[in-house]
């Protein structure tokens, strides 16, 4: 298994498999998002209490899942980078951080746009909203560390440490609605028993979530490919300087 993962993580192999996967991810994201969001906007019924605003669910919930799921992927990349000094995992860290920060921002923005008509407030300092805001700042912190050092390897290692430490926030986000009395509603889909929402809302949500998942990975893998090209450019420039020096 370790050998298989190591072979996938070689930059040449990564370029090959990610190049083959990316068109499918982009295409899948386009189709699933068109289907899921179209279904949610036009066909799914309004909620008996929330009316039309329930349709914000089809963008807010996938973004929230990706904010947390993305951090799990980040923690795994951080672990691989710290334990095996895997260079590709190091490049995954800023790519995931940027993508995760964007999806967490989407979660916060769409949450505010849902909160205003339903709660009468754009923002409340309840445990769920506050822990997601902390998650957003953690994403930014990881990104700043990963990109902020001249010695890239050092920055990526520091970012990996923060990524692992920040994992503590994930159960706080998930269980904040159970541990504290929050204005945000408790979990209605990811529960030990059956989901508490009707199938007519659940299915378009799952299709939309699959679309956002494909979009998340398309963006992250694309950034890693660009970062590998940048490393190639740095090596080429270094060789050019050395060769020019040898000639003179």
């Amino acid at each position: 298994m370790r050998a298989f993962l190591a072979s996938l993580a070689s930059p040449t192999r990564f370029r090959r498999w990610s190049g083959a996967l990316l068109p499918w991810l982009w295409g899948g994201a386009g189709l699933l998002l068109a289907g899921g969001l179209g279904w949610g906007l036009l066909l799914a019924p309004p909620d008996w209490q929330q009316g039309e605003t329930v349709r914000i669910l089809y963008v807010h919930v996938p973004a929230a899942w990706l904010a947390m799921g993305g951090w799990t992927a980040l923690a795994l990349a951080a672990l691989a980078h710290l334990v095996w000094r895997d260079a590709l995992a190091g490049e995954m860290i800023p790519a995931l951080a940027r993508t995760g920060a964007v999806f967490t921002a989407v979660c916060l923005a769409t949450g505010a746009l849902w909160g205003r008509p339903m709660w009468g407030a754009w923002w409340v300092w309840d445990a769920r909203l506050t822990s997601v805001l902390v998650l957003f700042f953690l994403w930014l912190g990881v990104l700043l560390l990963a990109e902020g050092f001249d010695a890239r390897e050092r920055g990526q290692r520091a970012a990996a440490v923060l990524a692992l430490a920040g994992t503590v926030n994930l159960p706080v986000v998930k269980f904040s609605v159970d541990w504290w009395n929050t204005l945000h509603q408790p979990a209605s889909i990811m529960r030990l028993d059956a989901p508490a929402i009707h199938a007519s809302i659940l299915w378009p949500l799952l299709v939309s979530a699959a679309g956002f998942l494909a979009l998340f990975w398309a963006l992250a893998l694309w950034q890693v490919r660009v970062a590998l090209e940048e490393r190639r450019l740095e090596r080429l420039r270094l060789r050019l300087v050395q060769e020019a020096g040898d000639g003179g």
Partner: protein
Amino acid sequence: MGAEAYWAFVASAYAAALGLPSALALWVWARAISVRRRLAAAQAARDALGEDRREDG
């Protein structure tokens, strides 16, 4: 609040959900183009250096 106002919130949420990832995609695309261009320039400089050497030698 009327149904029309509700739809305005829904439309804003969808615009944010699609707009922010699209902005990131645009930024990555611009970065990819810039890197490709710089790689081509560095490769051309390296080829020119090799050619100069061959002519001198």
